[in-house]
């Protein structure tokens, strides 16, 4: 059987988290009453002019920089002409001739391996409104019209649905780390179309199809893999691949040709005369650079290499930048990295879930967490009491040592006190004592537990075990 090669490229749209729309002063907010965040500019009234939003430019240059693009020294907009009722001017202000970024690349991680994808370009444009169909009528909501949209076009450097899935997950983390997009695929603030072609190995790109309507990374994987299979079967039957736009049918788990006929558009791009070219100043570029951060993929690999954190933990720690930042400042504050990771991934998470708040909203600081970890390390409290301490820290907004003192939870590390407790427990449990003396160590745990119980959890468990062993000569 012939051997095929597949080529997947992505066209990604992200909604930038700018305070206002890209060319007017309207609020950039979703979920409001239809047509409340609109003005003459975004409604395309006669006589209005677009005025580009500085923050949108800043965010766009940040993304282009993070994707290692050549940054445009003279970026300008173009008009992309086509009639569409969601689009108030019947042309979209976009970038074609001189986009913000070009010729970039980015690494992403899949199965522990780094892979590289080249970026064709990064360009800023305006989003359209939304049509809402009600029976035979169509209603139009322009709240989204004119909001800032950044399009990132990759080269066809991915091979499998798994690659594409991993890429988009990595990319989602990246834009969230930069703070330029919330990355919500279900709500459409991160949208992705897949271009895919296959060919006999070594023959280069084939005829591509474009798959739209993919609103999760999993569907991206499934749709790409489905399309690889479909194209392969077609080629094997001697058919030709039709260059077309297909839609992902979630219910049927397959791609289908788009039903509406999409005539070949001639967008008649020409430079937008209403806004002069943007020539970023050195200060602007310095600002862009100052806002760049260590990208999540590299942060994750660093945690693995530097701290030996792995699996779900390292994934969890680096998923969100605030969590990773919290972890790092806890380590900087003197906590053991592995302990810090364990606390953040389990106990803290459990407590936050219970309180239904996020880390940033909570009263927990990295300094307090480091202090708590060190209280355990120094033997002032044991792990069990430390967990209770954490809950109180969150509830009462207090330092851990204050809580420990108030509650009288300092660990009993005085061997005299522990010996008394041990003696009491051994006397009460002669059967277990006999068993151990007979060489069966099973009841050790039970006895230790009894001593801990008697100490109301304050005894140092290691010391307790040592004292029991000493007394029973085991």
């Amino acid at each position, binding site marked *: 059987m012939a051997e095929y090669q597949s080529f997947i490229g992505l066209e990604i749209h992200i909604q930038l988290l700018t305070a206002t729309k890209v060319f007017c002063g309207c609020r950039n907010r979703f979920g409001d009453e239809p047509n409340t965040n609109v003005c003459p500019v975004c409604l395309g*009234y006669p006589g209005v002019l*677009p005025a580009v939003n500085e923050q949108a430019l800043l965010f766009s240059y940040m993304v282009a920089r993070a994707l290692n693009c050549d940054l445009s020294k003279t970026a300008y907009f173009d008009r992309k002409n086509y009639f569409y009722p969601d689009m*108030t001017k019947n042309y979209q202000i976009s970038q074609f001739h001189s986009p913000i970024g070009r010729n970039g690349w980015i690494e992403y991680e899949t199965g522990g391996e780094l892979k590289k994808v080249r970026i064709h370009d990064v360009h800023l444009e305006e989003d359209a409104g939304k049509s809402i169909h009600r029976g035979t009528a169509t209603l139009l909501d322009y709240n989204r019209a004119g909001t800032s949209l950044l399009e990132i076009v990759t080269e066809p450097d991915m091979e499998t649905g798994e690659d594409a899935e991993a890429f988009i997950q990595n990319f989602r983390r990246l834009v969230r780390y930069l703070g330029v997009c919330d990355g919500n695929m279900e709500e459409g603030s991160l949208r992705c179309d897949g271009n895919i072609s296959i060919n006999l190995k070594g023959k280069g790109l084939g005829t591509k199809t474009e798959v739209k309507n993919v609103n999760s990374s999993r569907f991206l994987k499934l749709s790409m893999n489905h399309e690889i299979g479909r194209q392969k079967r077609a080629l094997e039957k001697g058919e030709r691949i039709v260059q077309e736009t297909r839609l992902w049918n979630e219910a049927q788990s397959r791609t289908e040709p788009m039903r509406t006929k999409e005539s070949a558009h*001639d967008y008649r791009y020409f430079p937008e005369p209403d806004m002069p070219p943007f020539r970023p100043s050195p200060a602007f570029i310095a600002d862009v650079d100052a806002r760049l951060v260590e990208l999540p993929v590299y942060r994750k690999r660093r945690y693995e290499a530097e701290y030996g954190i792995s699996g779900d933990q390292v994934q969890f720690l680096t998923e969100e930048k605030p969590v990773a930042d919290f972890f790092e400042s806890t380590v900087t504050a003197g906590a053991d990295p592995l302990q810090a990771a364990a606390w953040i991934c389990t106990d803290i998470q459990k407590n936050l879930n219970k309180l239904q708040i996020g880390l940033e909203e909570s009263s927990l600081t990295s300094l307090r967490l480091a202090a708590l970890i060190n209280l355990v390390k120094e033997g002032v409290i044991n792990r069990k009491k430390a967990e209770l301490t954490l809950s109180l820290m969150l509830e009462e907004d207090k330092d851990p040592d204050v809580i420990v003192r108030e509650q009288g939870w300092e660990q009993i590390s005085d061997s005299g006190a522990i010996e008394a407790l041990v003696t009491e427990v051994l006397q009460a449990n002669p059967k277990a004592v006999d068993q151990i003396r007979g060489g069966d160590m099973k009841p050790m745990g039970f006895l230790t537990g009894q001593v801990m119980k008697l100490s109301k959890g304050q005894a140092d468990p290691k010391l307790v075990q040592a004292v029991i062993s000493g007394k029973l000569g085991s």
Partner: protein
Amino acid sequence: MSVDPWKGILKDTQRHSAYLRYFEEWEARIGSFLEYRLSQDDPSDSGRLPLGGVPFGVKDNIAVEGYHCTCGSKILKDFTSPYSATAVNRLKAAGAVPVGKCNLDEFGMGSSTDNSALKKTHNPWDVSRVAGGSSGGSAAAVAAGLVPFALGSDTGGSVRQPAAFCGVYGLKPTYGAVSRYGLVAYASSLEVVGVLADTVDTARRVFDVIKGQDELDQSSALYPGLSRDRGGNPGAAPPAASTARIAVVEGLEGLSPEVEETYRSSIDFYKAAGCEIQPVSLPSLDYAVAAYYTIATAEASANLARYTGIRYGYRDTGAVTMEEMVRSSRTKGFGDEVKLRILLGTYVLRSGFQDQYYGRAQKIRTAIRNDFDRVFAAADLLLMPVFPVQAFPHGDTSLDQFQQKLADKFTVAANLAGIPALSFPTAPRNGLPVGMQLLGPVFSEQRLFAAAEIHEKSLGGIPRPHGFRSV
């Protein structure tokens, strides 16, 4: 000669009623306004404001909140603007009162105002003749003394040519000197908000109010600022008008005898005044009209795409599907000249043909800029006719729509180069005004005013049509 006698004319009951009578008598004859409200009180306690209580007209493609903004088109016949243009807001802040909206060629496309779908405007000097266009209503209203000034827009001569036809001053400012916010776009990279006025001083005072950067128009510049891309030293004081070096173009063809004679006598006037006359050639001028219509129509094809009847404007209610509705609203709403330009613009922007048309037009545009740069390296000003002929009769078959476009040769160059130009009236010939224009490097408006002013003094004020009465 200034705008001061107009102050308070709306407030004083006696003056107001005389004004109203005069206005309405003239208006019935010339049809310069599509809409006016003279009854409105002067809202400002305005004596101390620079233009306190002075009434003015606004071309109906410039937004004034609460007024219609029809653009002379059926497609916007019932549209009322929810906001005001920056130039209008600045004039209001200076105390001036917008009293109405002036007729124009539909969306500014034409040289006669006969392309208005809503009204016929006549030249106050001879009502059988056109007022010029596209700011014909604005020019006619000023010429007849209905207002001391009016705002117009100049995309390829649309302020200067009607000013010449009606015998008033017409300023086309430097591109970017006046905010375009609120000017309904026809050809965005060419057009500017301009001023039609009855004296140089009025034009200057109005310009001083409306000029300057506006955050709503990012193509607007600080004034006087450095020109953004080209030479010129706008910060420098203008040369004394009486010793200015004035370039004149040799070998102009196609001028009517009246216009040709006036050009000669205007050159003689400035020579006699002490100016140094420099004959120059402008070889790129021959390509200006072709380049202008290519760029203007390309931009128009996009700018006029928003008129679909979906959100505002004329909607054909007979249609069933959305596509049908858009198609038939546009088919019925736009006039022929507008449709022609949309089609041309769509044609020149087709992919695969852009280099041949749009790209070449941009190259010519650069060549024209270079020509002007060369001229203004040695001269302070350039003197040219505005239009090859005087105001022509309505329905004149000797000058069809195509020939009217060719005749834009002398005006479009300033729009392509983005430089300022001021059209000024001279002594009438055969009972009709003749206009000449002075051009200068970017941001040289003060130089244009100064040079026009010495001519104005010699003329003793603009010529006025029969029946004119001063306020």
